[in-house]
């Protein structure tokens, strides 16, 4: 009995091996992916991975890149900067990937960056917001997510409509959170709004009552909140418990408003969220058809809807690398790096095209992503009144 089973297994394996390469005569193009698949921000990292897998399957369904299949080599950085650095090293040295997408959090990306420079492998940064990432003079970095400054600039035009007079900050104590406080604080000061308290919380913290009590005593009208969705949920709930009456605006695009509605319920009502993808109204995105197709594919795969605001990043990151490999005509790190400068296409977020950022001669690439503001109204995600079409 056992023999027959192993025989059948062997047959099916060899058939699989014979069938799979049909149409893909050459070796696959291997793209490295570093995401937090476990740890405090695991949910977000897994959504990015799901989006990356959709991009891979779409590319392969269209016949791959110059006839070669795309393969993802996915590594878990465990929401930990140290792990991000060793994941980058492993992908480059052992798996010999010619390009990487990663590594979600700014601290994780910053930790992986020296490895890219050491071995000369480009990385497309899909989520991280800290401005330092493209300012360090690392020519292997190409970022498709907006740094906090760009986000602040995107919000600036709505500041009067939002009636922000005096704002406080509550941010996760990482490069991302600290960078956001500086960027949004500078923008507010420039516009003549007062900046109150800047409070921080550890990525793992669950009780933010001390910070909320302190902010409550300050007397502002708006609270800028920068962290991942889990902590946003807790802050919203605890703010409600303490009756903190503020306009709350989340930054960084990792707020997943649909998940907040589910988990924070009425505590999320009225809050504003800066997002880079609006799966609730895909037709309003720069490429409405692509956005709609992405939402449909995501739903078809049974992925949770609330993950879409992270998932698109994975798609756009992998699509960017595939585009660069196509332009380069080969999967070598140096050629891909050169080709990334020539990439110009529209992803789920919008147009992706890199401009130079950072010290001259060692510039990183920075794309100018589209930025949107949504509000939670009556338990649904909606455009804020000042944006809604009359």
């Amino acid at each position, binding site marked *: 009995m056992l023999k027959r089973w192993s025989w059948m297994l062997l047959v099916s394996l060899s058939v699989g091996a014979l069938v799979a390469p049909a149409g893909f005569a050459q070796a696959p193009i291997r793209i490295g992916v570093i995401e937090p*698949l*476990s*740890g*405090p921000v*695991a*949910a977000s*990292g*897994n959504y990015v991975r799901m989006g990356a897998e959709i991009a891979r399957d779409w590319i392969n369904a269209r016949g791959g890149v110059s006839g070669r299949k795309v393969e993802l080599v996915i590594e878990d950085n465990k929401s930990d900067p140290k792990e991000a650095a060793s994941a980058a090293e492993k992908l480059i040295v052992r798996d010999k990937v010619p390009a990487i997408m990663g590594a979600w959090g700014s601290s994780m990306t910053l930790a992986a960056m020296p490895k890219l420079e050491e071995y000369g492998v480009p990385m497309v940064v899909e989520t991280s917001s800290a401005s330092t990432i493209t300012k360090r003079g690392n020519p292997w970095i190409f970022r498709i997510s907006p740094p906090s400054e760009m986000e602040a600039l995107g919000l600036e035009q709505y500041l009067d409509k939002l009636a922000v007079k005096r704002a406080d900050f509550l941010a996760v*104590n990482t490069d991302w959170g600290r960078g956001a406080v500086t960027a949004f604080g500078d923008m507010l000061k420039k516009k003549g709004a007062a900046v109150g308290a800047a*409070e*921080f*919380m*550890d990525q*793992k*913290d*669950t*009780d933010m*009552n*001390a*910070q909320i*009590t*302190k902010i*409550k*005593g300050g007397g502002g009208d708006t609270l800028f909140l920068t962290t991942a*969705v*889990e902590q946003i*949920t*807790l802050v919203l*709930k605890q703010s*409600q*418990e*303490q*009756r903190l009456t503020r306009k709350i605006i989340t930054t960084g695009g990792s707020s997943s408003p649909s*998940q907040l509605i*589910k*988990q*924070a319920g*009425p*505590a999320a009502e009225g809050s504003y969220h800066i997002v880079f993808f609006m799966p609730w109204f895909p037709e309003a995105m720069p490429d409405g058809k692509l956005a709609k197709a992405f939402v449909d594919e995501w739903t078809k795969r049974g992925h*949770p809807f*609330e*993950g879409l605001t992270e998932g698109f990043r994975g798609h756009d990151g992998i699509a960017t690398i595939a585009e660069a490999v196509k332009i380069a005509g080969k999967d070598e790190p140096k050629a891909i790096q050169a080709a990334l400068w020539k990439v110009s296409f529209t992803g789920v977020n919008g147009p992706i095209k890199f401009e130079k950022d950072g010290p001259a001669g060692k510039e990183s690439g920075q794309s100018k992503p589209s930025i949107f503001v949504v509000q939670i109204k009556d338990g649904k995600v909606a455009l804020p009144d000042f944006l809604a079409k009359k």
Partner: protein
Amino acid sequence: MDALLQHLVNGLVLGGTYALLGIGLTLIFGLMNLVNFAHGELYTLGAYATFAALALGGLNFFAAVALAIALGAVVGAACERLLLRPLRGESIDTTMLVMIGLWIALQNGELLAWGGVAKSIPHPFPTAPLTLGPVGIAPLRLFVMATALVLIVAAWLLIQRTRLGRAMRATFQDRETAALMGVRIDRIHTATFAFGSALAAAAGALLGPIFLAYPSMGDLASLKAFSVVILGGLGNLPGATLGGLLLGIAEELGAGYVSSGYRDAVGFVIIILVLLFRPSGLFTRAERIG
């Protein structure tokens, strides 16, 4: 002044949750001389069990909490029986490694079973705070505080005033003598570990609805529980309770008046000071050794 009062109330409530985390660990640590790294995972188990009973089983909140506590005891007993009993008599390092293995296995098992997305545990209490002058407190937190107090007193009574408690203390003071006196030490080991695990699961079941349930939630809980145990002294229940409250208030005031970025540092500075000046814990009488 208003803010100070609110900070103190926050600190007390937070400290109550730390105390609840600490008592289960201090029992196992102090009585069994076992460094239980899996404590945080039993806390996670309690939270997920409550979630499952509520969302999937359709039980009411209090029944779900009770079920989670019972499950914690069963899983604890199974761990002791399967993993720790074969290792009895081995050095503390060996059991510590086994507990680290159990910690990793359980955490990854939870990730596999529930996925990385945090779960929100529903509860029947109103979200509007009860206010007394300038100070507000959520009804759920009051309930958790009260339950924690009941559990702490019950645990203390069990250990100090019952036959089982006396047998536990005897076993871990001198195993051979206790065995000669007719104590069934195998059962006592299982019962103690099950009891400590049930307390961890109780903490998870009660704190899960305040926070969120996610696979790595136990890491922070473990960290705080170990801090509380060090502050209070090994095996010292009133010590763990006071240690928990002290840590909660210190963190809260540190975050409120020094800097919220150094919140955890405040707690650890206190622990370092305690280790330097009162290494057996703040609330233990000097012990004669040897």
